[in-house]
């Protein structure tokens, strides 16, 4: 057996090792450039009370959660019970960002499904969403006392993510 004929086999073995490692990694987990950066500031109208506004500045000093949702988003309906659970736990105030939505539709949805949010900001044209780099609804951000984004999740939250990632993070942040 000549050594040079083994080269293809050896190259292939290396490839398989990489593929095996790759299998255990999640390609969807793209880190957000906003992690550990101050949450972009905004001031827009609230959903339920159009004459009042909401700004992240008003949440300074507490750990809070921002959840981007919309009435047209099917995955958000799936996520809804988890948010209700999160609100019930009382661990942190939950603020909604109603993204590219119609006010009536959004209110109807909250009425029929229950409202887990302390309040929702109404981002009708998606401007705030652009600042936060939203590329799929729902998305969830955990923001600390200093107004810094500490965690971002793309896609619907699940109880598993709440228990394994968000609750421990909230406890950590509150300690500091």
């Amino acid at each position, binding site marked *: 057996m000549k050594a040079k*004929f083994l080269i*293809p086999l050896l190259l292939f073995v290396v490839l398989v090792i990489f593929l095996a490692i790759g*299998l255990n*990694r999640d*390609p969807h987990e793209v880190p957000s450039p906003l992690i550990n950066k101050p949450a972009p500031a905004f001031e827009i109208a609230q959903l339920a009370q159009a004459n009042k506004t909401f700004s992240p500045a008003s949440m300074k000093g507490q750990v809070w959660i921002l959840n981007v949702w919309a009435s*047209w988003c*099917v995955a958000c309906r799936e996520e809804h019970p988890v948010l209700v659970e999160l609100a019930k736990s009382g661990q942190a105030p939950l603020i909604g960002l109603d993204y590219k939505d119609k006010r009536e539709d959004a209110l109807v949805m909250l009425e029929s499904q229950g409202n887990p949010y302390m309040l929702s900001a109404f981002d009708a044209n998606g401007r705030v969403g652009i600042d936060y780099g939203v590329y799929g609804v729902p998305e969830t951000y955990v923001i600390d006392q200093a107004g810094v984004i500490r965690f971002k999740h793309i896609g619907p939250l699940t109880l598993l993510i709440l228990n394994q990632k968000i609750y421990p993070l909230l406890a950590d942040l509150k300690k500091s």
Partner: protein
Amino acid sequence: MIPEFGHYALILALCIALIQGVLPLVGAHYGRREFLVLARPAAQTVFMLLATAFVILAWSFYANDFSVLYVAEHSNSQMPVIYRLGAVWGGHEGSLLLWIFLLSTWTILVAQLSKALDEFMVARVIGVLGLVTSGLLLFVLTTSNPFERLLPAAQDGRSLNPLLQDPGLVFHPPMLYMGYVGFSVAFAFAIASLLSGRLDAAWARWSRPWTTAAWVFLTLGIALGSWWAYYELGWGGWWFWDPVENASFIPWLVGTALLHSLAVTEKRGGFKSWTVLLAITAFSLSLLGTFLVRSGVLTSVHAFATDPRRGIFILIFLSLVVGSSLALYAWRAPKNTLGGKFSLSSRETFILLGNVFLVVSAGSVLLGTLYPLLIDALHLGKISVGPPYFNSVFVPIMIPLLVLMGIGPWTHWKNTDLLTVIKRLWLAGLVAVLAGVGIPLMMGEFTWLAGLGFLLAFWVIASGCMQIARQAKLGKPTRSFIGMQVAHLGIAIFVIGVTMVGAYQEEKDVRMLAGDTVSVGGYQIQLVGVNKVPGPNYQAMRGTFLLTKNGSTEATLYPEKRSYFSSTMPMTEAAIDVGLTRDIYVSLGEAIDDQAWAVRVYYKPFVDWIWGGCLFMALGGILAISDKRYRMSLRRATP
């Protein structure tokens, strides 16, 4: 009950495929004829069983049987029948079933059309194909059963992704898979010849038409996918270097190298080890492509929801098939005798050079595709590799390849006087330079890249035309000679299309009110209005645009923005006025307010030449297969 029959057929097919995979190989090794004769009937039975399973799945879609989980997930009673049938391969389970069904179709074709071949060889080929079939069937039955029930049944299905509800997509996967899977035949021939130790010109002659057939299907499949992306995705692009596109393109590049290398092995008995390695590689890359697409290790627009077990299974399967083949190669290939001697200036050298460029380009695309995965596995962060990498690496490799394409066909086997070739080719060179300078100037703007593109394309065309003229004088050219010329001409046409679009397309993103006009590439496009139009399973906003040139109306275009009832994502249906020398492409964006719309218009010169070129390549392949030499050789091979 009917879906259970399908499931049962798959289980039975696995049992018979194991027989098909094991006994003929054992029989061939020990010279036991009673085992050899099992190969054909076993392959036929597997084919019948898989066809039954496939028809049953299609029936479940046709009959809207939403108690079958796969149907409920990918179809919907409102969907038109043609898309319901297309949905059979719209998801993971069904597309795998299609893969296996086509594999067994290739097997049965080999079994039927190789009656004249040595029976040991045929038994080994069918046996190897049987082993591959068994592995994939085991995969389907353990992790991806398309007949899984959903009880209680769903009221209605979830529907197919609207992106996939398109005639292009009904035909794209079967074509592509025919190509992918077709390389399994060349692979099986290579393994069979390694096993028997009979790596000779006859082996290459048997493999050649099969490899060319697979290559034709792959060419058409890739072209169809590219064309679909062009008119369906609404971005106006025709190639995105998406991992899944790359997964089909890499085997194509290696398959192209294999076609040429097989010619050397057949004619001169040379490059045997290299050809065998290419045959193994082409099929391995098809399997790797399946792994990349099906396991979800790479993100892409094509990615399907994934299950980790699937990834692991395919990886193990891939390791077994490719690992054992390469081990067999390392063990048996060194025993090959060398082919005929050839000098540095000979057709062998030119084909080898072309092969090297093709393999290097395939390697660079593979590297770019896997790079994000490698970096992630090494914990160096997450990155994605985009078109800039591929364009800057791939295009430069293609330049010398096109130069070689103009010279290679003029050379002779063994030895050529390069000086005579150059003397003959000066005219082609002149035509190429004139085209490279003249066409960009005629288009109104000279860029080096455009100049280079036309230079290379016309170099290939002029050289090809001169050769056809010369051959015609010498006597009636063979079909495979014409096929080669047509396929090379296809490459040149393709290059012209790519160059024209790359250098001279115009794109405008505008806000338009009814009555507004935008002009692009010398055409005026006026928005007449936008109105609501109902579709079978969607609601559309349809724009009406008037296309005029110098005041005379050329066409009326109706781009749409569709909202499918089953999906929240709106779909863009671009409207295209197709022409031989240009496409006008209009796509409707978002409504900006009550009256205004965002509209994107493109002027794309010669864009259809891209796919036209692919058609020529495929036609060239078909002509080459139809060469009577192959049919005669089959008869002559009878002992």
